[in-house]
């Protein structure tokens, strides 16, 4: 396909109280088109706080985070990540995360601009590479359960967001209201060699290979600076574990030393089947069209989707047809289906100003759900 343009999509996750700082930094960097999504981050509560948290068994601290994402040219990716790390002190644990994943921008509305950074500052911040994102869609209320694996293994700080599931449900007529559509999407970013183990543990905990439980998939992330603050509470040491990690990172000059070697998560007899060779096919459009367009995609062969609300922001006050209220519909489809579905969406008005759609595609090396008996 000739239309695919290779870009990078940068995700910046910060606590809500840093939102102003983050927006200022992005505006200064010359980023004009971006999307924001609400999410909640999970951290473990340390011993000292245990008595306080008598209400929740899980001992989790939940905070509201904002997830900014924007598209830029791949050649800028590392520079942008380093720049924002410097500006927002993301290397200090607890300040937030940033990562960049390569995407192919299959189609996009003419209103969209590929962000071109300016005023980049030179920064030598350490950046982890070879990361894997794990996204897991489960029923609302189950998100924490699976996401906690990231905390208990010390591999990632999970972020959970809300979504609406479509698929089987939409084919039931009005009976659909009996099946809750609300989903939770838990996203973790881990090192490549930990990814399979973490994913397997999540599948076990969430019984994701059982019918009706959910869906989990991996996606490659080129580089990022990740939040290593997995727990909150009073520290009893002179330096917190996170501070020690960041100090050793600096001494070692890389994050390589942090790689964990898990004992191969082999349960012997159980051979799990995975889906491979898929792509994450994300459709972003003005609010109100997500569902109809997803329907079109499903007619063209997609299996189902999770739709989430996004907010579009134009930091430079450009007039465009893009509505501030946006939706993202994430479908996981076979590589071979991309063309048909793209065409179907295009012919159904994806690029009209009213819809102002865009399509982001990135590979999904491994996925798992109930595959039938």
């Amino acid at each position, binding site marked *: 396909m000739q239309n695919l343009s290779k870009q990078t999509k940068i995700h910046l996750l910060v606590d809500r109280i840093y*939102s102003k700082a983050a927006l200022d930094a992005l505006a200064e960097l010359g980023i004009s088109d971006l999307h924001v999504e609400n999410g909640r981050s999970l951290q473990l509560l340390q011993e000292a706080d245990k008595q306080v948290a008598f209400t929740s068994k899980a001992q989790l601290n939940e905070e509201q985070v904002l997830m900014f994402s924007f598209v830029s040219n791949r050649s800028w990716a590392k520079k942008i990540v380093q720049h924002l790390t410097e500006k927002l002190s993301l290397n200090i644990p607890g300040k937030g995360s940033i990562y960049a994943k390569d995407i192919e921008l299959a189609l996009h509305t003419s209103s969209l601009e590929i962000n071109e950074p300016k005023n980049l500052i030179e920064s030598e911040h350490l950046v982890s590479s070879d990361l894997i994102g794990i996204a897991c869609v489960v029923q609302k209320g189950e998100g924490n359960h699976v996401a906690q694996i990231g905390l208990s293994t010390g591999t990632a700080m999970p972020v*959970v967001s809300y979504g609406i599931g479509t698929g089987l449900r*939409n084919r039931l007529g*009005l009976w659909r209201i009996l099946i809750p559509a609300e989903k939770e999407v838990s996203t973790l970013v881990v090192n490549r060699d930990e990814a399979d183990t973490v994913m397997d543990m999540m599948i076990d905990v969430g019984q994701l290979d059982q019918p009706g439980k959910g869906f989990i998939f991996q996606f490659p992330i080129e580089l990022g600076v990740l939040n290593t603050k997995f727990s909150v*509470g009073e520290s009893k040491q002179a330096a917190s574990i996170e501070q020690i990690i960041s100090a050793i990172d600096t001494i070692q000059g890389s994050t390589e030393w942090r790689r964990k070697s898990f004992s191969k998560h082999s349960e012997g007899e159980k051979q799990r089947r995975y889906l491979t060779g898929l792509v994450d096919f994300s459709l972003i459009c003005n609010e109100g069209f997500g569902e109809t367009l997803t329907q079109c995609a499903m*007619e063209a062969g997609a299996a189902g989707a999770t739709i989430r609300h996004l907010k579009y922001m134009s930091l430079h006050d450009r007039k465009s047809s893009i509505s501030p209220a946006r939706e993202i519909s994430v479908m996981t489809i076979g590589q071979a289906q991309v063309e048909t579905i793209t065409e179907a969406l295009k012919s159904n*008005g994806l690029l009209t100003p009213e819809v102002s759609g865009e399509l982001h595609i990135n590979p999904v090396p491994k996925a798992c759900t109930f595959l039938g008996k």
Partner: protein
Amino acid sequence: MAKSNSTISRMKLSVKEKLNLLLPYFRKKILEQVKAVALIVVYLVIFQTVILGIAIAEALIISLGISVIVFGLAFFMEGLFLGLMPLGEAIGIKLPQKTKLPIILGFALILGIGVTFAEPAIGVLQMAGSFIKAWDAPLLFLMLNKHAGILKAVVGLGVGLAVVFGMLRFMFNWSLKPFLYIGIPAALLFSLWAQFDPNMSKVIGLAWDSGGVTTGPVTVPLVLALGIGVCRVVSKNSTESGGFGVVTLASLFPILAVLTLGLVFLPSVPTPSNQADFFAKDNRERVESLFESKQAMIGYALRNASVEAQTKLFDGDRVTALDYIRSLKINTTLREQTLASSDPKALERWAISNGDYEQRLVVFGSDQAIKQAVEAFSTKQIQQVDFADVSLRNGLASLQAILPLVAFLLLVLFFLLRERLQHPDEILLGVFFAVFGMFLFNIGIELGLSKLGNQVGSALPASFKRIDLNDQRQIIPNFDESVVLTAISANGEKTRFFYTNLNGAYVQVPYDQAKNDSDQRRYNFVPSKGPMFGAEGNAGGIMLVLLFAFIMGYAATLAEPALNALGSTVETLTVGSFKKNLLMQSVAIGVGVGILVGVLKIIYDIPLIWLIGPPYLLLLLLSKVSTEEFVNIGWDSAGVTTGPITVPLVLAMGLGLSSQVGAVEGFGILACASVFPILSVLSVGLIVNIKKKRTLKVAA
């Protein structure tokens, strides 16, 4: 344009599969509501039977009513989330994109006025003021009766303006705080001034209560959803999740509106005075202006005032007064105008319940006829519940509350915005659920919760004073004055009493000459109860009442549908990091405290302004240091607390207490129940923020 007709085959479900889906769904929704309602019901039942030790009358109907509430709430909430809220949000998103500001504001104004008329909150206020007497509070009487329509319109205008300013706030990203800094002190100063005018002081309670009751279970979710929709589109370059604040303004503006209305009527009304002076000749013209007509005034006096005061209406001439009553017997139109009833027996009924001996004589003619009539009217005491009537009334009320509003929104969507509905089947089903749910829910309230609340409410004063249990009245036949004994008190005062055998227990009953019908040898026995801890007005009894008030407020709030909707909305907007439960618990505790304070107001007759002034001033301080988000949520939660579950219970308790302690008006509890939840929510917000700052400091 995306096409909508789907070629994807519809899946057919077998009956068994449908049941497999339906049953767990149903069980979940019902259980949710059982949990919500259980606390308040169990609490009321235990309080009445175990603590007050009074059996529950009509237990069967009450338990039926309560189970209907559970189903009603389940349907109503589902209807909100399926139909009304998505509709509101859809319009909110499209409105700023497709129309201009003046049209949005016009829409907001109509919507605000519309919701006030749809939700008959004014009825609640009229009930709260039902036993105020014209001579005690003429201005209040005028506003609740003759000018009730104007009152309603003015409150509606207040809510309309609130929605208008709410939209302006969203569009231009204004903070809520300036509205509070100006509005609250203005309302407080106005009330403070009003406190020193004998007429206006009675209106303060009405004004502050009307702020609380205007925002009902349909208005709040709808306005909230609309606001969230608008905010998702207009709040440019802000990451705040907005949409709150309209409810606050809709509580604030009506206060000012009602006080202003009072000011307008003030010059024309008579000053409060005793009955005789009130109906005297030189006061006549002003008093007459309180009523629809001269006849209505006379009728009111006949029903409510003493015979002496009634005679004043006929310039002190007793004969003219009796002549007037005689003329009522013949002149049907005059009777209907005077007694405001088309019942041909209205005059007789009035004579039995209100008339003195001479008046009865005029109506019935002879002593014998009076005796017969008294017997005839007093035998049909027990009222059967008329299920057809209850269903019809509540059915109409719920249709009226929801359908016109939905129709208006759909018209706006189709014709003004030229949009289609995303899931028309789902939304229509939701609207149907909402109407049906509200219908069941209202029936349940009327048959179950209100009755239970009334029983507990009227028995409650038994904890600190002696009260008569009128629903357990019985007639003792073969009564003979020889069973009456005499007792003497420590200071030599003699009182008479007798023993009666009540279900095997010998009970002392104070003898009351008036209750003894010596001709028929019958004693009209009304069992009484209390005071529970020693003397009348003892501290223990009052503590018990306060404890009751607190727990009742707390438990009832947890069952409120509007608060549930608000809590869910907050939780969704913050992706679960602000838990619904935390919000509901803080609000419920606040309401509990508020109702406790309101009860203090009634028992000790403390002017409302002294009870709500200081908390509101403290609130302004707290709002100053709180984040914009918490200020919005905190103040909004105040508006939603007083809903269909709390209000009947609070009113029942308030009326029960007021009539026992002799207060002029039962207003003010709701106003108290509005201010304290704001305090608790803002305090919780501050604590959460301080904690968070500390953990972030550790990080840095």
